[in-house]
């Protein structure tokens, strides 16, 4: 167990180091001098040179990387060029909507995905199975921004049930802020349920063929008990993995949906930073999102091993 943990941890560190290199190179290889960009069009050559020296941009690239990494490891992601605040503060401010949006979306996706997947597996090949498989494929083919625009048009503009966009100020009650997340969470939940349907179906089909399911049937248990208590419980482990992965991907992958609904989340922060070429923010946000992804992956893996004693270390 300990050896396994250590090797997983080392692998994670290696991946994060490469992620850091990629993120660093991504912004340093971009055309245009960050110093000139920060100062604007009126800057003189001396101003630019002074700022370059101040930020260490005149140093060789590997040295810049080591310096940057040292700061990152101390929790300093740098200063935003446009927001007049540290990148960590900007990220912290944007974390709330993204966190709750991810939570709601994953909940909706699971509530749709698991029952549909179970039904598909039990009535495999029948009309309902084919319908769900088709719907899953359709879900994976709809652009989230387009689906969002349709839902806004119908539920917000026509029916007036939900706010058209935005999140509400920090001083309004949490419930009111969360109300803003219902439609975007539906968009992400419905579209991302496709993967969970597929996995649940596959996992259930595997388990339904097992000997202990046949034994349960032979013992005269009702089919409902066999499916829900004996089969689903054992099929849940791979399903939980997919749910975790969906959550991990949504944290940064909800960019487009956040933009359509005008939610001030992490994804929105990245897009506005890209449009303004605010490199420290792009760097910091990418690094944070990748770190969360890698961490969630590790947690899923550990959970998998704790939940299923059959998985050997």
């Amino acid at each position, binding site marked *: 167990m300990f050896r396994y943990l250590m090797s997983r941890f080392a692998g994670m560190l290696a991946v994060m180091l*490469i992620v850091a290199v990629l993120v660093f190179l991504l912004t340093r290889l971009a055309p245009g001098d960050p110093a000139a960009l920060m100062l604007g069009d009126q800057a003189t050559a001396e101003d630019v040179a002074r700022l370059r020296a101040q930020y260490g941009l005149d140093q060789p690239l590997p040295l810049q990387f080591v310096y940057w990494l040292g700061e990152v490891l101390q929790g300093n992601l740098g200063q935003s060029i446009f927001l007049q605040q540290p990148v960590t503060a900007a990220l912290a401010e944007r974390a709330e909507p993204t966190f709750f949006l991810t939570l709601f979306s994953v909940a909706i996706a699971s509530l749709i995905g698991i029952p549909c997947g179970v039904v598909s597996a039990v009535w495999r090949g029948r009309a309902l199975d084919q319908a769900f498989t088709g719907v899953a494929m359709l879900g994976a083919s709809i*652009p989230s921004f387009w689906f969002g625009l349709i839902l806004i048009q119908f539920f917000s503009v026509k029916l007036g049930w939900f706010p058209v966009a935005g999140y509400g100020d920090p001083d309004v009650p949490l419930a009111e802020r969360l109300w803003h997340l219902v439609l975007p969470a539906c968009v992400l939940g419905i579209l991302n349920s496709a993967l969970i349907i597929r996995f649940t179906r596959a996992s259930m089909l595997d388990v339904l063929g097992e000997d202990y399911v046949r034994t349960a049937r032979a013992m005269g248990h009702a089919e409902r008990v066999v499916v829900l208590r004996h089969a689903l419980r054992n099929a849940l482990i791979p399903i939980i993995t997919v749910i975790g992965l969906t959550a991990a991907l949504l944290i940064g992958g909800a960019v487009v949906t956040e*933009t359509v609904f005008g939610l001030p989340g992490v994804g929105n922060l990245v897009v506005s930073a890209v*449009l303004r070429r605010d490199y420290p923010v792009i760097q910091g946000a990418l690094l944070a999102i990748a770190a969360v992804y890698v961490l969630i992956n590790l947690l899923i893996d550990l959970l998998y091993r704790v939940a299923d004693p059959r998985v050997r270390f």
Partner: protein
Amino acid sequence: MAAAASASVSSPGLGLALRKLFRRKVVLAGAVALVVLVLLALFAPFASPYDPSALKVLERLRGPSALHWFGTDEFGRDIFTRVVVGARYSLTIGALTVLIATVAGTLLGLCAGYFRRLDTPIMRVVDAMMAFPDILLAIALMAMLGASLFNVVLALAIVYTPRIARIVRASTLVVRELLFVEAARALGVSTARILFRHILLNTLSPILVQATFIFAYAILAEAGLSFLGVGVPPEIPTWGTMVAAGQQFADQAFWVVLYPGLAIVIAALSLQMVGDGLRDMLDPRLRKSL
């Protein structure tokens, strides 16, 4: 004589494969929709009497009618015409992305799977790249490259290369250990020939299946990037830029965003249907569980 013999051997094989592939009605429907889209894109100038970029302000935001099947946009341009022209751009972007990602991913995957020393370095970078959500990595790459048609293709190709690399590596690891590869090595066949002749040919099915899905994802991702304003410049009519431009008129003229979006759905859906059919046909083991 030899040519005739080989033709009679290969063509029933292909016919049989196609019949097997299209036995499922869904797969056939997807293939037909794809062919229609490609034909429309190829013959775009003949598909409609309108000029896709001619401005007619008097005709702006007209609803769908016999004259304008999908209505007109904020500049009075015929939306059907623009959706058809958009098919050219969107499908080309998707196809080029798949092509570049497949070639690059296959080379990387073959090297990682065959040469033990290259395995860890290549796969660590692949893992690191896959730690970013697709769309986010694409956005970050676009920030570096700058918004243009070619850069969208390049960015998306970089994003999807690791997926292909992973699959090719996994198959290579299996095929590498098979007897016929060992036999080829014993016969003194060159490494390049073993890689491209013997191993690559045996990993083609999973590559083909994955490429179909990536085609669909690339079309969706291009639309997303263009919608965010970091993709294709707005003056080029892709399906994504059309929805993005129409967004502010959605309240008064919903067809402006409806039809280009539907085109995206149809293209992505039919590609995934065909991909699903290919997977079924090429990998009978999967059919049992999926």
